[in-house]
C-alpha cells in the first residue's frame, strides 16, 4: 500500500503539495506515482522564475517504463528547483516526500490551495 502522509495536499495527477510557513508551496510526486513509474532515470525541471497557470505542464519524470509530464497543481511562479534530482533521479523512488521534492512555488491565489485533495481524498482516488 502506497504511503499518503496526512499533512500534505494532493492532486489527481499524483503530485503532493506542502504549504510552508512563509506561504510558499513545495511540490513533488507521490509514493503511488513513483511505484507506478518504476526506476526513475531522468528528471527535467522548469526554470526558476517561470510563471505557470494551473495544470500547465512544467516538468518531466522519466522512468525505464515511461515518460510522465508533471503539471503545476496551482497557478504561481517557480522560485526554486531541486537540482539534486538531475544527478540522482533515483531519489524519486527512494524518498518521494522528502529529498525528492521537485520545485517550490509562490502561489498566485492562496484560496486555490483549499480546493486541493486532502490525504483521505487522494488515498480514495488511488484505490479506485
Amino acid at each position, binding site marked *: 500500500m502506497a504511503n499518503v502522509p496526512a499533512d500534505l495536499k494532493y492532486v489527481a495527477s499524483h503530485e503532493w503539495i506542502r504549504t510552508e510557513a512563509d506561504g510558499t508551496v513545495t511540490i513533488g510526486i507521490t509514493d503511488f506515482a513513483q511505484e507506478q513509474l*518504476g*526506476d526513475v*532515470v*531522468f528528471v*527535467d525541471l522548469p526554470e526558476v522564475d517561470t510563471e505557470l497557470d494551473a495544470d500547465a505542464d512544467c516538468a518531466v519524470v*522519466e522512468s*525505464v*517504463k515511461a*515518460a510522465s509530464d508533471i503539471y503545476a497543481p496551482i497557478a504561481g511562479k517557480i522560485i526554486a528547483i531541486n537540482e539534486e534530482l538531475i544527478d540522482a533521479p533515483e531519489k524519486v*523512488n527512494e524518498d518521494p516526500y522528502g529529498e525528492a521534492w521537485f520545485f517550490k512555488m509562490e502561489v498566485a491565489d492562496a484560496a486555490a490551495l483549499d480546493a486541493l485533495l486532502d490525504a483521505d481524498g487522494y488515498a480514495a482516488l488511488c484505490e479506485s
Partner: protein
Amino acid sequence: MAKRTALYAKHLEANAKMVDFAGWDMPIHYGSQIQEHNAVREQAGMFDVSHMTIVDVNGSDATDYLQKLLANDVARLQEKGKALYSAMLNQDGGVIDDLIVYKADNGYRLVVNSATRAKDLEWMERHLRGFDNLTLTEHPELAMIAVQGPKAMGLVKLARPESATAIDGLKVFQGRSQSNWFFARTGYTGEDGLEIMVPEAEAADFWQDLLSAGVQPCGLGARDTLRLEAGMNLYGNDMDETISPLQAAMGWTVAWEPADRAFIGRDALEAEKAAGVATKLVGLVLEGRGIMRSHQKVLVDLGNGEQGEGEVTSGTFSPTLQNSIAMARVPKATGDTCHVDIRGKQVPARVIKLPFVRNGKKVYE
C-alpha cells in the same frame, strides 16, 4: 484468468510486481529492475522463463523436417546437445519466430517464444505432411529457470551439487540432460549462465535453493534491458512476419550452404539479396537526456543532401552504460549519426553496430 507458472507463489513471496505477459502472470521486477540488471552483470540473477514453449521433434525424419522448416541448418549440429539460434520463415522470407534448437536423442528440442506459441505449433503441424517418421511433443509440464551472470555456473552448483555432473564441461550453446532435467548453457543476457528445464513439481524448491545460494530474482524489466545491451532481438519488436532476417541483423543465422537445401523462405531471401536489402537493423546510442522507445521516428542523412527515415524497434535506458540505447531499422545508406524524434524533439544519436555490451563492458568506441 491469466496463466501462472509453477513459480507464481515464489514471485509473490519475493514481493514481485506482477504484470500480464502474453497471457501469463509474470514478474516485471521485485523492487528495482535496475538493481536486478546490475546483479546479473556483476554476480548472478535468475529469471522464471517457464512461459516459453518447449517442443521436441523426434523420429528419423526429424533432420529433414527441420532442414525444411528452419533458415539455419540443424545438420550443422554434430555433437549431442549442441544448439543453434535460428529463424523460422514463411514463404515470403518473413520471420514467424526466432528460436533455439538443441540436438537430442532421436531428434531435436526446440524452445520458441511464448507469445507466438499457437502460431508456431500450427505452422509446425501443418508442415508435418509428407514426413512419415516424425512426432511433435510439447512439454508444458517443464518449468524453466534461467540463471545468468559471471557467478551463475558456480552458484547453480552450490545450490544443487549434483548438477556438477551435467554442468562441468558443458560448452556454450550446448545442453545436457540429467534425469528429467535439462541444463543448457544459453541465455538472453550476454552473460555466461544456464537455462534449466525442470519438472514443474520440482521448480519451486530449486528456485528456493538458488535464492539461498545468493542468486537474485530478476523480472521481465531487467530481462529486456539486459538483452538489448547484448544486441539480442525481441520478436514482435525487432522483427515480425513482415521483416526478413536480412533486415533484422540475423543474416548470420541463415545457412545458405548447402545450396540445394530448400528451406521455406529461401527463394524470397535469395531474391532480396540479389535486389539489395533496403534496410538494416542498427544500434543507437543517444547523445543527450531522454529515452528512446519503440516506434519513434529516426531521421538520417543518406548522403548527397538526401534525408531518409527509419524507426526505433526497441529502446530503453541502459543501466550498464547509464544512457539510452535502442535498436532501429534504418535505410541501408545510413551513416554514423542520426536524430531520434523523442516527444517532439530531434535528439542526436550515434549509429553503431550491435552489440552495446559484452562481458559486462561497453564494446563500441
